[in-house]
């Protein structure tokens, strides 16, 4: 979540004070991403340093300063909105690592490990879905943020399902391979059951 660019986006609507930016940031993300006021002022200092935002009352207390976006800020915001995030490198996903490790350990039931995580994720999805039921608070920004979280968790559940299926198939095939190999050896050596 780029706080820097989100604040620029809010400033592109018109000049604002720090506390106002914090409130509007939290509202625009449906309160899903909290932001402390210190982060807001640090980010505003950096935006000002980089020439992306400015304020007339430089000597005033930071809480009293009214910030506005500069032309460079407008251009930076437009560039950022259209620039795809870097998704080329897969993240170091702890859950993927756990399942890979579990699949190699002979004394661990990998399907049980998968189910523990599947259940936890579905429970988490139930919690997010409950938020959708409360339609009073369900404004557009909140709906988009909750959907994003549900789709992210859903993708993890789907990966677990795929891993479960792939592991079962691969174990079945290796069992079949061993049985066929034993039959071949028996035939070759003339051994009987």
């Amino acid at each position, binding site marked *: 979540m780029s706080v820097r660019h989100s604040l620029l986006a809010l400033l592109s609507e018109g000049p604002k004070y720090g506390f106002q930016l914090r409130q509007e940031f939290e509202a625009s993300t449906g*309160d*899903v991403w*909290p932001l402390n006021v210190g982060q807001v002022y640090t980010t505003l200092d950096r935006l000002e340093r980089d020439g992306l935002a400015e304020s007339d009352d430089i000597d005033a207390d930071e809480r009293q300063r009214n910030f506005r976006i500069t032309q460079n800020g407008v251009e930076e915001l437009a560039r950022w909105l259209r620039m795809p995030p870097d998704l080329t490198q897969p993240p170091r996903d702890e859950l993927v690592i756990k399942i890979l490790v579990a699949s190699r350990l002979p004394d661990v039931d990998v399907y049980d490990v998968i*189910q*523990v*995580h*599947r*259940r*936890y*994720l*579905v*429970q*988490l*999805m*139930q*919690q*997010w*879905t*409950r*938020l*959708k*039921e*409360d339609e009073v608070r369900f404004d557009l920004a909140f709906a988009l943020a909750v*959907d994003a979280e*549900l*789709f992210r*968790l*859903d993708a993890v*559940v*789907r990966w677990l*399902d795929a891993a*479960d*299926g792939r592991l079962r198939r691969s174990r079945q095939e290796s069992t079949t391979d061993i049985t066929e190999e034993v039959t071949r050896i028996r035939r070759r050596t003339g051994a009987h059951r």
Partner: protein
Amino acid sequence: MSMLELRNVSKVYGEGATEVDALRNIDLEVDRGSLVAIMGPSGSGKSTLLTIAGSLELPTTGDVMIDGSNVVGMSRNDKARLRRRTIGYVFQDFNLLAGLTAVENVSLPLELDGVPMKKARAQGMSALDELGLSHRAERFPDELSGGERQRVAIARAVVGERSLLLADEPSGALDSVNGEAVMRMILSACHRGVAALVVTHDAKLASWADRVVFLRDGKAVDETLSPPGPEELLDHDATNPPAS
């Protein structure tokens, strides 16, 4: 008392070498007003469980109690009456009759049950109205969008005094926004006291349920515990507990 109760239900297809255990010792209760989801991969027994819960098929062993009556041992006529009066079905491919309008599709089960045509139609209209479809009542299924057809199917499933709703991948063919609308309708039926059982492989759908039961190779292997309230997600001082 539960609206639906499966007691130690097993279902075996075939004999000898071709014998397949489709369901094994399933115990399941669905209370009035609650939504239970069954999740599992293809071939896990989800659809068999639903057809047995709906009395469309009998278990090999075990009991199926619907509104306190055991379906096992019930006469064919009694089962048919129970299905008409108590149970509503929603299928992935809607199963609407092409030659009937939306309202005729919805009121047909009532008419079959002996409700006079005028009264059945009024109840059908009211069910469609609740789902925001009264303006499409005179349209035929092929004149409706996928989302509208599924809403008609839900209206047909909950029309009259039906108190058990059984749904098989009810939003499988719909996009996520329409799929969510379908789950909201099922949930709203539950808030009116209907008991609902939904089978799906989709976690987004299952997450609307009060309880999710995981099926694997015909066995209920696990189920969700009651999750904490949603407010915890927005309480950023609280940490999410690890899986146990």
